[in-house]
């Protein structure tokens, strides 16, 4: 009797998928491209991005410009390295940290009822609370992706257990 639906086997297949190099590449490509896309508008317009950061009203003013200068380039290189598959562990962890920071900023803005635009992808000063909510959800999914890359990039760990034998 076929028993492919057993929990042990499903878990194994799931793990196999997470370690699968094509799946890993797809994930890295999607998240990397999103990071690069998000950075492009800001790379050469730090003053505009500084305004967007100021609208969050979270950082001390003297730190705003330095963040506006460095953050976009950090995003850009995280994206690039993710796509190229260089320093996978390091970049995916860095991406996770950035996403957690964004998530805190977005949630805090949302909770405080700030009517601001996200400043995530474009720097236009449109204001819509829906935008922030959408970005929070998107951020959570991307965070999940970066955690998967961090945990499952590279070769599966051999912990001595063989995959559950297929019962015929």
């Amino acid at each position, binding site marked *: 009797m076929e028993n492919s639906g057993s929990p042990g086997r499903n878990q194994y297949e799931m793990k196999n998928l997470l370690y699968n190099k094509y799946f890993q590449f797809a994930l890295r490509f999607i998240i990397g491209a999103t990071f690069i896309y998000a950075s492009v508008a800001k790379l050469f317009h730090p003053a505009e991005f*500084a305004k967007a950061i100021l609208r969050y009203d979270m950082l001390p003013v003297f730190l705003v410009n330095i963040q506006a200068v*460095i953050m976009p380039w950090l995003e850009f290189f995280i994206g690039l390295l993710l796509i190229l598959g260089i320093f996978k562990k*390091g970049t995916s962890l*860095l991406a996770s940290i950035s996403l957690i920071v964004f998530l805190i900023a977005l949630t805090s803005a949302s909770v405080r009822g700030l009517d601001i635009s996200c400043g995530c992808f474009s720097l236009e000063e449109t204001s819509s609370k829906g935008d922030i909510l959408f970005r929070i959800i998107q951020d959570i999914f991307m965070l999940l992706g970066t955690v998967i890359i961090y945990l499952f990039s590279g070769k599966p760990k051999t912990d001595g257990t063989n995959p559950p034998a297929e019962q015929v």
Partner: protein
Amino acid sequence: MKVFKQITAVFIFSAVIALIVNAVNPNGVPLIMEKNIYKQDTTSKSNIGDFINDPYDTTTKPSQFFGGKKNKQGFIEPENISSVLAKQLYDRKALFIDARTKAEYDTLHIKDAVNISYMDFYPKSAAERADVMKKFGKSGIIVVYCNGGTCEVSIDLAYEIAKLGFNNVSIYKGGITEWKTLGHPVETNMK
């Protein structure tokens, strides 16, 4: 440990590139922002909505935009405004007056600003001063500026205009220098 090294390497590399690009970028910013230059004015009425000013309308009844009170000398003192409010007023057709000399004005001025040089204005009699200003409405919003920094002719001119009974005179201390830095419209009369 390896991961930590990777993170440090990526961070430092990005920061170095970012600082280099910022240094050569004409739109680069100073690394330390001393004060929030984009902050909305809280002292003056900056929520100006759809209001459109017409400084040339001399028929409207006097109204007060900045909400100052008449001082002991009987005029409403000019208000200092930030670049943010200055731009909002600019977008709503406030009258911008360049208080510098004609030569300076011709070199570069805020687009559509008129030139009333304080050096020329000050020696005039009260009647002559009123004559210069008669084409402008007393309740229209006026923004006076000069070079920015420590220049004072904008303050001096603003007070002289306010003394003529203009109710809504303001001083944009950032002046042409800050205005240009922010990328707002400027023009020149030089060929």
